[in-house]
């Protein structure tokens, strides 16, 4: 393992950057929604205070394998997201061939843990939430994977550093659009928030969580924001230039997406599960299939 990989894992865009950035993005989400509703919204340090407070709560003592699993899921989510962030080609060096596949797999971990947490908790609300999340993730992942494969076909590689940067190929941009369409479902934002619909099923899969484990889930949510918006940012930001400018632009473009997605989430109402699936399987998948077939066609033509 070289020094660059360690820097990416622990400093930027990994651990040391990602945790404050995740809090900042979660704050940005709440603040943007509040401003759209003409409210003032939470103070800047709110997600940090929430996390610290949750660390200091006394949680119910549970025993047995379920208890260990329930504690394991959020930690696993946080760790896999940090590993995914370390693969992001913010500075297009390093990486290894096929790391794009690893990145997609690591991004999927929090969603799988979220579903398992709901089933393991034994709460009826958790189980309903898990079923909804599982169905929605099957629907949105089809589009997400097709979008990534489209990009991979246009660049003819699965290496993240080769994905990075804008491309002349239209397939690249349709792929980026497809990924953007899937982010609300992956982050469980309106209109795709059926799995944690608190008006119907309390807190969905997290209903039984409390204290530090809940804090880890909130942290994982922040990291998901950083990883997904950061992925799109690396796909559209030009490569090259001084490293600090690149880092600043990376954060700025990610944060712009946070504002955009929060705006959409504030402006829309929650879809039913069926409507969400229809959205992905009827409309988005058409786009994704078109993109991929055109990308494959372009490759054979050239």
């Amino acid at each position, binding site marked *: 393992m070289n020094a660059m990989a360690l820097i990416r894992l622990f400093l930027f865009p990994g651990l040391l950057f990602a945790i404050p950035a995740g809090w900042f993005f979660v704050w940005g989400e*709440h603040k943007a929604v*509040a401003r759209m*509703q*003409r*409210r*003032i*919204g*939470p*103070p800047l*340090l*709110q997600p*940090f*205070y*929430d996390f*610290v*407070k949750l*660390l*200091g*709560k*006394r*949680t*119910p*003592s*549970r025993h047995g394998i379920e208890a260990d699993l329930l504690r394991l899921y959020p930690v696993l989510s946080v760790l896999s997201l940090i590993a995914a962030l370390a693969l992001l080609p913010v500075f297009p060096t390093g990486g290894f061939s096929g790391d794009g596949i690893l990145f997609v797999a690591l991004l999927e971990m929090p969603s799988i843990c979220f579903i398992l947490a709901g089933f393991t908790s034994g709460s009826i*609300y958790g189980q309903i939430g898990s079923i909804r999340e599982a169905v929605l993730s099957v629907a949105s992942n089809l589009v997400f994977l097709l979008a990534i494969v489209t990009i991979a076909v246009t660049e003819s590689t699965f290496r993240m550093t080769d994905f990075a940067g804008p491309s002349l190929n239209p397939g690249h941009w349709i792929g980026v659009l497809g990924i953007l369409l899937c982010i609300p479902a992956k982050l469980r934002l309106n209109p795709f928030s059926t799995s*944690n619909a*608190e*008006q119907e*099923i*309390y*807190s969905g899969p*997290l*209903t*039984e*969580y*409390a*204290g530090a484990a*809940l804090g880890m889930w909130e942290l994982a949510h922040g990291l998901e924001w950083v990883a997904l918006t950061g992925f799109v940012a690396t796909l559209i930001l030009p490569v090259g230039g001084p490293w600090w400018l690149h880092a600043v632009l990376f954060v700025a473009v990610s944060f712009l997406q946070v504002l955009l997605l929060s705006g959409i989430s504030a402006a829309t109402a929650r879809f039913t599960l069926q409507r969400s699936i229809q959205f992905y399987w009827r409309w988005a998948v058409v786009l994704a299939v078109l993109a991929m077939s055109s990308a494959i066609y372009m490759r054979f033509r050239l």
Partner: protein
Amino acid sequence: MNIFSRLMHRARVKSPRLFHLNTGSCNGCDIELVTCLSPRYDVEQLGIHLEGSPRHADILCITGPVTRNTLEAVKATYAQVCEPKAVVALGSCPASCNVFAGSPVIEGPLAKHIPVDVYVPGCPPHPDAIINGIARAAQILADRGVPEKAKGEPQQ
């Protein structure tokens, strides 16, 4: 107080999450509580957030005179909120049973069943008074911290 407990104290004051439990109220107090979330009062500025699950909450907001049907729910929900926690009784109903006093189906007042930290009187109370009550409860909860002798673990 060392720096960590000072930070924890501050975080507890700054991040009160609520769970709202209706124990047979006429809905007047419930509407006033929800008003606090609206743009005019915007309690999110103070970090106040209405939670879906009592497990996630710090402050239990109870409205209504505690009917016989809801008594078990009150006790169970109180047990499910994790320490440190506080209870806010919204309106005159949980304090005195108000107009429902004397009814055979009323088990109130609330303080007979669980400890109440803050009373917000009124029928219904003004949203400003509710916000003030919640802020006081957050302060009480932070000052108290996790009690030394555990009054029973939170219920599974």
